[in-house]
């Protein structure tokens, strides 16, 4: 039976990816602004699909489970924003393609005591040309490194915004998201003008 137009769903889903090294505070960041407690979903993947597409289904491969934490924010204009935390372990980096597909952009959370933990994420979003911002998580509210030092350590392009935040604090997380969407918007506007 066909549903009438008035019964059509009205919400549009959009998403932002929250990446960074293991233990950098991704789920805390998502939880600070999500209207639901961050939930965890699992995908069963074949070990062989790590790095390549899941092409063969012969039932003989070993499988593993990858978990993703996510949150949801209802926005006005009938939008619903999903925030996805990337799986922290390196061996699940291939999942990032799936997460990044169709994303407005990404937040790369950085702990300045372990900057190398976010290199993989920065490489990935640069190569994929996904708009991203670097959000330095100030553990205990302390700004340990100046912005120029962070930029130097991460070797990011000058146009990539760097924001300081406390991942536990809602307004901080909100500000990071605003910075990201503004960045994505300015890039999209440039691209539209170029086409």
């Amino acid at each position, binding site marked *: *039976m*066909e*549903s009438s137009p008035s*019964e*059509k*769903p*009205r*919400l*549009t*889903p*959009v*998403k932002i990816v929250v990446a960074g090294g293991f233990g950098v505070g991704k789920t805390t960041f998502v939880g600070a*602004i999500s209207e639901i407690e961050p*939930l*965890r*979903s*699992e*995908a*069963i993947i074949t070990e062989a699909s790590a790095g390549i597409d*899941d*092409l063969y*289904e012969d*039932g003989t491969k070993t499988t593993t*489970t990858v*978990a*993703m934490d*996510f949150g*949801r*924010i209802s*926005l*006005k*204009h009938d*939008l*619903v*924003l*999903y925030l*996805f935390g990337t799986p922290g372990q390196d061996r699940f980096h291939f999942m990032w393609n*799936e*997460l990044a*597909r*169709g994303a*407005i952009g990404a937040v790369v959370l950085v702990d300045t005591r372990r900057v190398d933990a976010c290199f993989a994420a920065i490489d990935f979003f640069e190569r994929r040309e996904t708009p991203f911002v670097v959000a330095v998580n100030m553990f205990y509210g302390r700004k340990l490194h100046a912005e120029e030092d962070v930029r130097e350590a991460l070797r990011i392009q000058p146009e990539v915004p760097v924001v300081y935040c406390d991942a536990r604090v809602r307004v901080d997380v*909100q500000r990071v*998201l*605003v910075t990201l*969407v*503004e960045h*994505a*918007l300015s890039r*999209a*506007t440039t*691209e*539209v003008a170029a*086409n």
Partner: protein
Amino acid sequence: MSVWAIPQPAISGRIVRPYTMTGGRTGSDLPRIALEALVTATPAGMRMRTRFRWESADIITHTRKETAIIELAALLEVPIGVVRVLAADLADKGAVTITDPPSETDVTSDGYTDLLQKVLDGIKSL
């Protein structure tokens, strides 16, 4: 939370191999439904609900309000791949509709900048 990583039937009571629910299909033959795609039960789906196996019936129950694929996986404690297959089947039967997110090919359109502007307004006014 992790029902399938380490079997914990006491939590969900579901001692079923996850892909048994999908007849062994893993969804690799289907176009990938986005994790954030919204599933919504149709009135017809609500009426047909009891004709489906419980896991599909559960999806209809949970999607009276729009619910994303990834949320369904978390709420029903089944892997994302299983939800994708079941939701696609339900959509084929007219029991649910699936709203896709804007595709990446939209990125260089005016519509996309409008969308981003709305998202920005929305986040600012939280």
